[in-house]
């Protein structure tokens, strides 16, 4: 309101939160903002580690190189999309099912629970090696079982048609427990009364699950999907690096792996920087869309 006098706290009081926040802000700015600026520098110049003479402005050339001159970027883009969508979908369905079983309890539940959570604690690199060797055609356990079924020396990870499936299985194995944990926590936080009312009205378990439990869990479901989508997009590097290093050919080379290989195998830092920055743009768009969706949900 113009003319109306508003109370304003004295300056030293208004600056108080800054006092608490400034160390963190300084640290975060220096380890994210400066690197980001430097990334922009890398992306717009020719920076080849093995050939330091070649420096100069070349943004347009770099962009053309990565996005237009070869289909590699778009292949990796599609690979990343397929991987993220399939692992998040499978982990969600499995996690929801398991969470429902654990929520309703069964004999031995508390004994089993910590074991079911174990995979998410393990180092992803170790998870990658375990599955790499499980899938190994010569001595791996899975290959051994396939052999018993009459398939000889089949290495899932060495075949272009099945390598991606191998990676999906390893990721699902590691991160389904995370979905289980979040969704179970969500189920336990639900109020009891709607369930009792529905039971009095004679609804069966499946109707209660579909019409009462799932709608009430919408916020936690959106959060769980959001976290897993972001993590799958960003961090699907370790297990691929170990299991296939992007191969065979390039069928499992996600954007993160491609950015790493461009920079540290071919030493084209500028290409790596452009690919990495494109990931940042994509993840920003994705989170914006998903959080808008989340707000719409809150609004109903």
């Amino acid at each position, binding site marked *: 309101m113009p003319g109306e006098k508003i109370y304003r706290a004295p300056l030293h009081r208004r600056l108080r939160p800054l006092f608490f926040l400034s160390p963190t802000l300084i640290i975060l700015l220096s380890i994210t903002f400066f690197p980001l600026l430097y990334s922009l520098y890398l992306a717009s110049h020719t920076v080849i580690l093995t050939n330091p003479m070649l420096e100069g402005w070349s943004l347009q050339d770099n962009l053309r190189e990565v996005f237009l001159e070869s289909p590699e970027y778009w292949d990796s883009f599609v690979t990343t999309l397929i991987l993220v969508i399939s692992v998040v979908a499978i982990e969600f369905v499995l996690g929801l099912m398991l969470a429902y079983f654990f929520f309703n309890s069964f004999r031995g539940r508390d004994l089993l629970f910590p074991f079911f959570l*174990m995979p998410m604690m*393990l180092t992803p690199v170790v998870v990658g090696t375990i599955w790499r060797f499980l899938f190994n055609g010569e001595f791996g356990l899975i290959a051994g079982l396939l052999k018993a079924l009459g398939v000889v020396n089949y290495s899932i990870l060495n075949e272009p048609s099945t390598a991606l499936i191998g990676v999906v299985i390893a990721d699902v194995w590691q991160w389904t427990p995370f979905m289980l944990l979040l969704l179970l926590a969500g189920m336990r936080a639900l109020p009891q009364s709607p369930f009792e009312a529905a039971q009095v009205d004679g609804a069966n378990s499946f109707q209660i699950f579909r019409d009462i439990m799932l709608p009430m869990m919408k916020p936690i479901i959106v959060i769980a999907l959001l976290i897993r989508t972001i993590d799958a997009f960003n961090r699907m*590097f370790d297990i691929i690096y*170990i299991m296939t290093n992007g191969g065979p050919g390039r069928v499992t080379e996600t954007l993160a792996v491609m950015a*790493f290989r461009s920079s540290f195998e071919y030493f084209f830092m500028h290409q790596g920087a452009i690919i990495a920055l494109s990931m940042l743009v994509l993840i920003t768009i994705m989170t914006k869309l998903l959080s808008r969706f989340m707000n719409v949900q809150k609004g109903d």
Partner: protein
Amino acid sequence: MAPKSRAYWIACYAILAVYGVFTLLPIAYLIVSSFKTQQQIYDGVASTFWFTPTLDSYRFIFETKPILQMLTNTAIVSVGSTLFSLVFGTIAAYGLARYKFRGRDDLAFYILSIRMFPPIVAALPIFMIFNSLDLLDSKIGLIIAYTSFNLPFVVWMMTGFIKSVPVQLEEAAMVDGQSQLGAIRDILIPVLRPSILAVGIFCIIFSWNEFLFALILTKSQAKTLPVAIPEFITWTEVGWNYVAAAGMVLVAPVLVFSFLAQRYMVRGMSMGAIKD
């Protein structure tokens, strides 16, 4: 809950059994393989779990690689980065939770969004910057790099936890003559101890398991154990028992630790997630 049909229980136990085997078999495979000789690895499916255990693989990896040094590096970097992030992150969370100021929600979102950075985006320029600052292959450098994902996590979680503690507790202490910092130290921090513990446990596990930064930023002196794991894999893939042994050395502390701390972690996780 409504009573369940017979079909439900059959499905429940069948799915749990199948999933249980799926989840436990790879871990069991890792454990047994680490106690085998190279020859025993090739013995076939029937002897996967039936063999004479030996410590040869462990002896070999400790003799050929500085496993102990890498393990120490991993521990120092994890604990260092966690303590650093906990101190500054909790202070910042206090500012976000206890004050209203213009742009607060934007600031909170900015801090959270750093956690959503693809690590590779930060890793490339940090490599170049550390290269010119002579911080490559140093534990300090790695601690700084790990803070980039631990600090936002601490701020995000602790803001929620501090908001859930009634501000009246601190105000009462301040009315009684305590300074603000005194009230934080004597009243707020003791109440928050379990939450701080839970958040710290997560930070330690994130750092312990981290691979990409360690791969790019270390060479020998500051090398952590996760980076050494792939080195045991040769192109002929014969080293599985060694990889398994090194993997066990890396994974066993986390597994033991997480079993002991499970109660805290589940609570910390669900509280943080349920909040807004």
